[in-house]
């Protein structure tokens, strides 16, 4: 929140600057004076690796040829308050934005302003989190079943019985709810799986570590941990409590967690699990689809078909492959210790959808030298299932909402 104010001041300056530029814009193509598309990158908050990486990807792509000649990107950080993002959207629309790529703070509160923006001809592309307003595009992995698939992986590793912790995200957040509901759908089928502690870790490594340490004080005999982002902190808490004992656990995509899953010492101590969850690469995918629609190389989708699913990353311990260079090449999916911080979210890359990116893009927001924007593959865009309250309002969820896509149960309930 502290950051918000300064960011806003900066954004305001940028908006004023941008505003003067678009005054004389012709109506037909709402471009800026110098012929560039005016694109806003609207973030919730900065300050954790995931948010920064997602933003850096878009910045890097916007600076990669030919977008560096055709796109004017303005970054605006709104903090954690939906009201702030609403007024930021209003300013962007008033300034003649062509498109807004955004991490939406609320799935419902932004609907009205998004609707208004659509009527003014602004393209809205939401990544990771979603809005239920049907005129916006939602590009998200959220419907891809992180909760249920990772829960099943944990159940399999535990042979269907044991005491587990749930390390959740931010209370009241629709993403956290969706994940946890999916996971509980699986855990509830196994009466021998007992959730002995459930705590909110705010998708942060250090909070996860402290909360897990507290839970371990009461339950040192825990058999497994189901975690959302911040999972690397849970490993540190386990080692702190007992340097010789780890347990099966599932979590998201931090580099530290992937290295731990593949570490033979840790495996001997009992770690076993899957790294899955939210990829920052969604932002880049969203941005590229939007640019293809703006540039006319891709048709806009009808209003009720704008929910697009980003595939769920799924890396079990035995599938972790270290990268030699600065990209995901030859099927690698983690970086050697020391190259990136352990909290670095590895899924910034996607060789098919985003071949333009490298480590400098994710860490610094700089374009990869020599890279050029590549068109998306023809089959890149896949429709996401409807989920009421997440990506649509008056709609029915499919009957098999929580069906497993990545893993089969090896133990029957």
């Amino acid at each position, binding site marked *: 929140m502290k*950051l918000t104010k300064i960011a806003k001041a900066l954004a305001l300056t940028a908006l004023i600057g941008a505003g003067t530029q678009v005054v004389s814009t012709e109506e037909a193509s709402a471009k800026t004076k110098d012929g560039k598309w005016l694109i806003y990158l609207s973030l919730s908050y900065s300050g954790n690796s995931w*948010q920064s990486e997602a933003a*850096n990807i878009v910045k890097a792509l916007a600076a990669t040829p030919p977008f560096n000649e055709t796109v004017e990107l303005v970054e605006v950080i709104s903090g954690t308050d939906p009201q702030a993002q609403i007024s930021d959207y209003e300013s962007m629309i008033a300034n003649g934005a062509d498109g807004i790529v955004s991490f939406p703070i609320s799935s419902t509160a932004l609907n009205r302003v998004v609707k208004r923006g659509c009527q003014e001809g602004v393209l809205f592309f939401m990544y990771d989190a979603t809005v239920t307003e049907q005129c916006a595009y939602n590009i998200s992995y959220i419907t891809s079943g992180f909760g249920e698939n990772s829960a099943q992986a944990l159940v399999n590793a535990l042979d269907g019985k044991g005491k587990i912790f749930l390390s959740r995200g931010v209370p009241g957040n629709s993403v956290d709810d969706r994940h946890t509901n999916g996971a509980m759908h699986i855990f509830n089928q196994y009466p021998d799986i007992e959730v002995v*502690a459930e705590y909110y870790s705010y998708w942060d*490594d250090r909070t996860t570590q*402290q909360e897990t*340490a*507290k839970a371990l004080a009461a339950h*040192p005999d825990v058999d497994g941990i189901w975690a959302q982002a911040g999972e690397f902190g849970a490993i540190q808490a386990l080692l702190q409590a007992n340097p010789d004992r780890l347990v099966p656990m599932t979590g998201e995509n931090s580099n530290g967690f992937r290295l731990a899953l593949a570490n033979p010492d840790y495996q001997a101590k009992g770690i076993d699990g899957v790294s899955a969850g939210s990829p920052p690469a969604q932002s880049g995918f969203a941005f590229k689809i939007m640019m293809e629609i703006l540039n006319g190389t891709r048709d806009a989708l009808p209003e009720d078909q704008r929910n697009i699913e980003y595939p769920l990353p799924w890396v079990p311990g035995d599938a972790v492959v270290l990268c030699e260079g600065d990209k995901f090449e030859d099927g690698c999916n983690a970086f050697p210790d020391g190259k990136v911080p352990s*909290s670095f979210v590895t899924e910034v890359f996607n060789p098919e959808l985003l071949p333009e990116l490298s480590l400098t893009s994710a860490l610094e927001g700089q374009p990869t030298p020599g890279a050029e924007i590549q068109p998306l593959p023809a089959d890149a865009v896949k429709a996401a299932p409807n989920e009421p309250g997440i990506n649509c309002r008056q709609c029915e969820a499919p009957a098999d909402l929580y069906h497993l896509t990545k893993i089969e149960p090896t133990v029957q309930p």
Partner: protein
Amino acid sequence: MQNDNAMTNAGAEQEDKRTTAKVSGEFVTIVAIFGLTIAMILASRAISPSFGSWSQVETILYLSSFLVFCAFGQGLVILVRGLDLSIASVITLGGVLTASLMNGSNEGLIYLVPMILGACVIVGVVSGIGVAYLRVPPFIMTMAVGLIVYSLCLGFTRGTPRGYPAPLLSDFMQGKFLGVPAPVYLLLVFVVFGTVLQSYSAFGRKLNAVGNNPLAAYIAGLPSGLLIVSAYAVSALCAGFTGMMLAGYASGATLRMGDSYLLPSIAAVVVGGSSILGGQGNFVGTVGGALLLTTLATILTALGIEQGWKTIMEGGVILLALIALREQSFAFLRDVFGKRG
């Protein structure tokens, strides 16, 4: 001291009585808060058989040490009638600098540690000067400085703090000595040191004097401006130290690492019997407050109840402790029983 004597002589016996009552009241608060903490630990056995064990006590001591470190500085600032809202940002600053400058090596630690802590002290000095000489309200001054420091951290790291603390630091924070986590020893040393500094050193007594009555302290010839600046500097030093320890604990820094210590650091000071209006306080009480808050959080996490209820209970217990442990409450009880007897 001259003044004190003169007043005592003039006010005769009544002054003496008030002084005795005040000291014993403080003592009772401390005993009560530690008693309450121990009672909570023992009672928590009902929740989980592993509770009430030595390992739970270890966890609580360990986790509370971070809060104790930064609450000491907060306590000094509150003592001189201030409030330090920049603690969260300075913790982050300490952590980010620790991770990025040490960068996973023990080399040059002798220079780096004073450098990192020195950077934090500068932040405190700036806050202190603003409060003491420019007369900016402490609330505004420290909030503004905190904002600036946080933004500098964000810009410096570009959102992703990199690097690792020195292996020596990580090993210390994660290591054990005679079966007890090493930071617990550090905590004990810190508590002794802090108590001596705040209550028994000339520096601490001067701060007390400034907090009690800045004008009187000034007339008595104390450099009150300088003392206020030094309180903020110590607070920033402690916050930076907390950040360094946290980075060692988590083997890295995050930009939000200080957020969860700001309000608890104030709560620990106040629950521990210090006056939020300044001029009265005792570090042992603050330590008790920090232990109480951490114990409560540990038990609530283990209960596995809804987040809403958790925060309600946390708020409720803090409020109850504050009301119940006030000197006035003891005085009230004494009066009631005194009348009956």
